[in-house]
């Protein structure tokens, strides 16, 4: 059975430290932005948002929400708008792959993404002198003019597959494929694995009563879920803005 890689992020554990965002940038060769870069023009495959319950002191509570590509399974919005076929959902893994070498830079996908999880290369990547030596050889840096996003550290899947192939195995050992953010989280708030494997921790947690997904009303079946026992945090998931009802993703 093909895999369906997914994630569960425990928002009651996340302290908002930002380790995951740094580990992600290092793993995926994301260059530091040039002077003047903003949170709209910079590249952060993984981003931590802060939310609060809207109460005044001392009732204030806050939560940190790490957001990356949710790997939508159905009607994947970035796939359907791409005029270049530069995005696809891998039938074997469920990972939504962005192929920068095919991308023409129109940014429809960025407009289509309900999670703002896609980023554009406004500049050619540049690393401070000497830092280029720390680049990850398993991930190719992108050029100016193309879109990019999280792909569950696909380079690590390559490495795990190579290890399996060298041992003559058809399938990878799940322990060999762990994305950088999962590995780096000091509170172990992120769990990763194959949702199709009913015995996996990620599959169990995604069915937990604390589990929810963002914007699930769009019907895109994201493969990233969140956990929280706080009702106000869960209510963030389907917060409806003024444009109510009209939003619907079509494939």
């Amino acid at each position, binding site marked *: 059975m093909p895999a369906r890689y997914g994630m569960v992020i425990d928002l009651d554990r996340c302290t908002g430290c930002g380790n995951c965002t740094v580990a992600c940038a290092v793993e995926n060769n994301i260059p530091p932005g040039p002077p003047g870069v903003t949170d709209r023009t910079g590249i952060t495959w993984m981003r931590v948002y802060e939310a609060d319950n809207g109460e005044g002191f001392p009732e204030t509570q806050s939560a940190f929400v790490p957001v990356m590509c949710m790997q939508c399974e159905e009607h994947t919005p970035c796939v359907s708008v791409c005029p270049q076929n530069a995005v*696809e959902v891998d039938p074997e893994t469920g990972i939504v792959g962005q192929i920068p070498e095919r991308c023409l830079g129109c940014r429809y996908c960025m407009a289509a993404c309900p999670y703002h999880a896609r980023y554009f290369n406004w500049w050619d990547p540049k690393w401070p002198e000497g830092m280029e030596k720390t680049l990850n050889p398993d991930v190719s840096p992108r050029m100016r003019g193309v879109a990019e996003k999280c792909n569950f550290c*696909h380079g690590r899947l390559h*490495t795990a*597959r*190579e*290890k399996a*192939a*060298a041992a003559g195995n058809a399938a990878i050992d799940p322990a060999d494929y762990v994305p950088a953010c999962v590995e780096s989280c000091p509170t172990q708030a992120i769990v990763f694995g194959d949702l199709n494997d009913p015995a996996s921790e990620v599959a169990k947690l995604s069915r937990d009563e604390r589990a929810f997904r963002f914007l699930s009303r769009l019907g895109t079946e994201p493969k990233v879920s969140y956990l929280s026992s706080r009702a106000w945090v869960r209510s963030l998931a389907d917060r409806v803005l003024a444009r109510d009802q009209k939003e619907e993703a079509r494939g």
Partner: protein
Amino acid sequence: MNRFRVLFPLAGLLVGLTAGWVLFPALLYRTEEQPLQFSHAVHTDTGGMACADCHSFDADGRFVGIPTTAQCASCHADVMGETENEKRFVEEYVKTNREVPWKVYARQPDNAYFPHAAHVTRGGIACERCHGPHGTMNTLRPYQVNRITGYSRDIWGSSIGRVGMEPWEGMKMDDCVRCHRETERARACLDCHK
């Protein structure tokens, strides 16, 4: 008079075609010499070494590729033979502990991902299927690089029209996919791209 009307354009066409056929590759590709001549035959044929003695996999199944100078030093700590190439190799690289900056004919663009372990170890495909007789050659042929893309000419193959090439020649995306169709392998873009 009439005969010229026909012959003249034909001759022009012929000159144009020949020039295109001969000049275009010369314009498109720049030829570079390898930093050092290396004979596979001396090592694999005469020396009886196996490919894996030099081209091995590391513990994680990653293909090590071209061996480092340290791997050659066990035999070439000092000059053993008479050849100029070996003398140069020992003096310029082994004694100074430098790596030879080999130009790799098969090297794919950085964004392409190719796993040797899947093909060689698990798939059982022979090196010759993709690299031809390289492992038994006596000399290194000149390396040609595409002036526009900077890629090795081997990616496209020796023939500009891609006709009459050996089965192992050319390793464009289409060539990977043609072989994969038979085995239904690596169908997603990210399987081969990184």
